[in-house]
């Protein structure tokens, strides 16, 4: 589904990703861990299409499409979803309006008719119930004044509505209370299917208790320095990142 080959990416002149490769097959869940500043969000943003990041070498292929040729909105319509580590507050842009526009942009791209207001509301309320979100959030500005946890839930709501083929969740589990964590996990597990792939960027083992990953990668200084199965996450929790760094350098 997603093939990243030896990618180099920089921002403001400094190279952050330095020869990173990653292969995520349909049906799989991958977890990416790694110390602060190692480039996890950079990787997520490069896949989503942030123009501040300059890809200087390597390739990113998604469903046989050269992703780097596409604008962010084209990537979204092709089924890529990024759950932001820091969701953006957009005062005055109605949450429901954004959800509906997003859904319709994708449907239009797929040659489907726009969803009508009634169907949309029904679907949104259904997804919100699953995530334990008050329907009132539909009528607020996008993330406007949302608490940290509410913002993360709102990202998951968007994901649940858009049903992406490839979801990248950048620390969506950070700052969540235990109920919210379960709700997020529920959202991810519901999405999980043989024709979808999910990449979870996380610092904590606890999300992985609910969502079992097929592979776990450790990113350090812009490269994947170690990959393994879910036991790698446990081992990291136990030994910290110095252990991987040493192993990688030695």
């Amino acid at each position: 589904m997603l093939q990243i080959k030896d990618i180099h990416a920089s921002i403001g002149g400094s190279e952050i990703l330095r020869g990173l490769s990653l292969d995520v097959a349909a049906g799989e869940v991958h977890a990416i861990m790694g110390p602060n500043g190692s480039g996890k969000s950079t990787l997520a943003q490069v896949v989503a299409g942030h123009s501040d990041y300059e890809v200087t070498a390597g390739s990113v292929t998604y469903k046989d499409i050269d992703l780097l040729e596409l604008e962010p909105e084209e990537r979204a319509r092709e089924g890529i979803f990024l759950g932001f580590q820091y969701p953006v507050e957009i005062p005055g842009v109605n949450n429901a309006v954004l959800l509906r526009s997003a859904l319709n942009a994708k449907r239009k791209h797929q040659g489907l008719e726009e969803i009508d207001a009634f169907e949309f509301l029904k679907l949104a309320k259904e997804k919100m119930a699953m995530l334990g979100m008050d329907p009132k959030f539909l009528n607020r500005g996008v993330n406007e004044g949302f608490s940290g946890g509410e913002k993360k839930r709102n990202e998951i709501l968007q994901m649940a509505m858009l049903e992406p083929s490839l979801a990248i969740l950048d620390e969506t589990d950070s700052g969540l209370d235990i109920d919210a964590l379960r709700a997020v996990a529920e959202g991810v597990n519901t999405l999980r299917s043989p024709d979808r792939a999910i990449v979870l960027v996380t610092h904590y083992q606890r999300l992985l208790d609910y969502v079992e990953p097929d592979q776990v990668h450790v990113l350090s200084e812009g490269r994947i320095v170690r990959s393994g199965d879910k036991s790698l996450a446990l081992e990291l929790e136990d030994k910290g990142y110095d252990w991987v760094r040493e192993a990688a350098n030695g």
Partner: protein
Amino acid sequence: MKSATLEFDALAAAVGALPETALSASRQSALEQLRRRGMPGVREEDWKYTDVSTLVDITNTWLASGARVAAAAAAEPAAGIDADWFTIVNGQFDEAQLQTLPEGVTVERLSSNVSALPSLGRLGELNTALLHDGLKISVDKGVVLERPIGLLLFDQADDGASVSQVRVDIELAPSSSAAFIEHQVSGGDSDLYANVAIRLALGDNASADYVRIQDRGPQHSQTGYHGIELGCDARLRQASFDLGGKLVRDDLVVNIAHPGAEAEFGGLYLVGDGQHVDNHTRVDHRVGPAVSRQEYRGILAGKARGVWNGKAIVHEGADGTDAEQSNHNLLLSQSAEINAKPELEIYADDVKCSHGTTVGQLDENALYYLRTRGLDIDEARQALTRAFAHAIVGRSPIEQLEEFLLGEIDRRLRDLLREDVA
């Protein structure tokens, strides 16, 4: 730069040619005043950013061609707005429409009501001197009007320059309540200068909702003056929407000389290439307690030029004054310009005053976020500008206008966003 001067001989001839009415004496004295003071120039602090010399040129051209008043064209109020409309076309109105009035409202010609007409504002003398006639609208004591009164100010500018003067005096007797919609529109491709003067006096405990929608053509200029007097515990809620026009200047002047008054006002200006829109406000807090709050927002594209100047003066002894003003601007292009200036002058001790002014661009992070959700760049820009503009619609007092305003704003924003890309 030499500022243009009015051709006074031609002006005097035009004033003299107006039909003799009870206003004739006021016209003559306004003409004399105007001869002494001249038109406002950019050396005057309040006119620093708005050069009216093009308006003087239009007026001179119009005078030279005989100061004609175009034959009254048909003007239809905007569909879907429910109001009792008075239509003023090229500064003239038809007697017949003064008959169909809601109960408790009187409308008269100014010429049949007043003998001496005080001029309003810096362009007030020009207005009085050339005024055919004006309207006087009175709402009786205790009357609560269900339906807004609409003022459709329409000008048709077809062959050569046109100039028109509009004057409306509105008085709300104590404890009455009414809403007003002033819709300023025009047709035709010739130069136009429309000069509008409105006086709104609220008696004790009266309340007025007032919405001004200016959507003149791209060749059409307008100056407006709204002079507002508030009685004890009177309440004004006002919003203005500048969507069109070439050179537009509006002065909103609120006089608070009685305690308990509340004035909430503000506006939105959407300004594109070739347009200059200037909103000047002034509130005089002469006594307290009283409240004034204003919020103006502007979106400017292309080589647009905008001016916002909000002056609040808290006079000596006006304790208990609560004055708040804010102005936010969104510049869609590098070449758009805004001169934003809050001015607070406080001579009393116990006051609460605040002001805030911002000038910014569209938030790149927000644009990107929306694009990652599948909106294309135009849709994302439209969503952000719309959100910025809609905040003012949310403050607008006449609820039934919401749909109309949102539609007009969307249409205008699409133009501005297109302009900026070009």
